[in-house]
């Protein structure tokens, strides 16, 4: 029997959790993704008449099925935003950008996106924005490459 030895250097090794999850969408979220591929944004009509984007499959208050999808956007206004000074490698944009919750025209609830803008001072609640579509689209949330301010649209499109 020996006494406990002083633990030396702490062992450590990388652990990677990685998988190409394949998710079935169901008809409502499937329609939303289909729309992204076709450059069309859709929301679902809730029981209280609100249009929810991305579409909810089920009424967020009652839990009942929602079945009516309506076209919204493509432009909208910023409901709230946050400026990322040092983007993470996993973030959708490499340069400093704003997370935005965008209430699309015709929608009542905002959706999340990444806004490309010149700087924190260029972004404000209530500003109008529009999506910039990815060149190759497959029916994925990344089909919206990012959002741009409507006034800056030309510059955003070039970038």
């Amino acid at each position, binding site marked *: *029997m020996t006494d*406990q030895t002083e633990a030396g250097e702490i062992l450590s090794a990388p652990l*990677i*959790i990685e998988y*190409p999850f394949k*998710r079935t969408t169901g008809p409502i979220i499937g329609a939303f993704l*289909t729309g992204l591929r076709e450059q*069309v944004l*859709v929301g679902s009509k809730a029981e209280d008449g609100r249009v929810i984007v991305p579409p909810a499959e089920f009424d967020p208050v009652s839990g009942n099925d929602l079945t009516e999808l309506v076209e919204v956007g493509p432009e909208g206004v910023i409901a709230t935003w946050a400026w990322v000074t040092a983007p993470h490698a996993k973030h959708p944009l490499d340069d400093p950008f704003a997370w935005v919750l965008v209430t699309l025209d015709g929608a009542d609830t905002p959706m999340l996106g990444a806004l490309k803008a010149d700087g924190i001072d260029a972004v404000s609640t209530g500003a109008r924005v529009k999506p910039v579509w990815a060149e190759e689209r497959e029916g994925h949330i990344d089909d919206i490459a990012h959002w741009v301010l409507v006034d800056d649209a030309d510059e955003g499109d070039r970038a």
Partner: protein
Amino acid sequence: MPEIQLPASLQDVEAVRSVRTPARLDYTFTPGDATSRFLAGITQKKIIGQQANPDSRVYVPARGADPELGAATPIEVEVAQVGTVTSFCVVNLQFYGSGMEIPYTSALILLDGADLSIMHLIQEIPADQVRIGMRVEAVWRDDADIEPTLESIKWFRPTGEPDDVNVRIPGEIRGTGLGSWVGGVAPTELTVRNPRTGEGGTAEFGGEG
């Protein structure tokens, strides 16, 4: 399934039904104190058991707590590199991450001086000749390939000793096992020795350390 009403723009296009959302998370894994001490032994080709106190079970490898006492296992005890097969299965299927040639034998091996079997491979004997009670010994990788992992033991192989017909298989009391109903009567907590109070258990098993 309720009928979905689509806007005109989406009525005549092929619908998306599934989506790939690959995700990767990177972690830095550290195994903790008990495992690190066990693996430090492995790098010296020693199999080090641990126990909570001089009278308690010897666990190999200890995982941080004596699971019966709920206590840390600071005491280190080197156990033998030979032991007895307490059970096994023969694997005929290639598994995720396993480079083994099939069929191969995965066995529970109770090392001499330890109180709980480890799971490891048996080689150097045809799979259909492996037996419960068979005596086996550790076969190490070459010294240059020893790493802090139990896989530094490549496998176990028969020692050639006679089988241990009295191998202590945990739980084998009360007819066939701890969770047996004998004469229609259920076992109780007192069927086993309480490691904190010393109460319970049978002469057959449980009094020992």
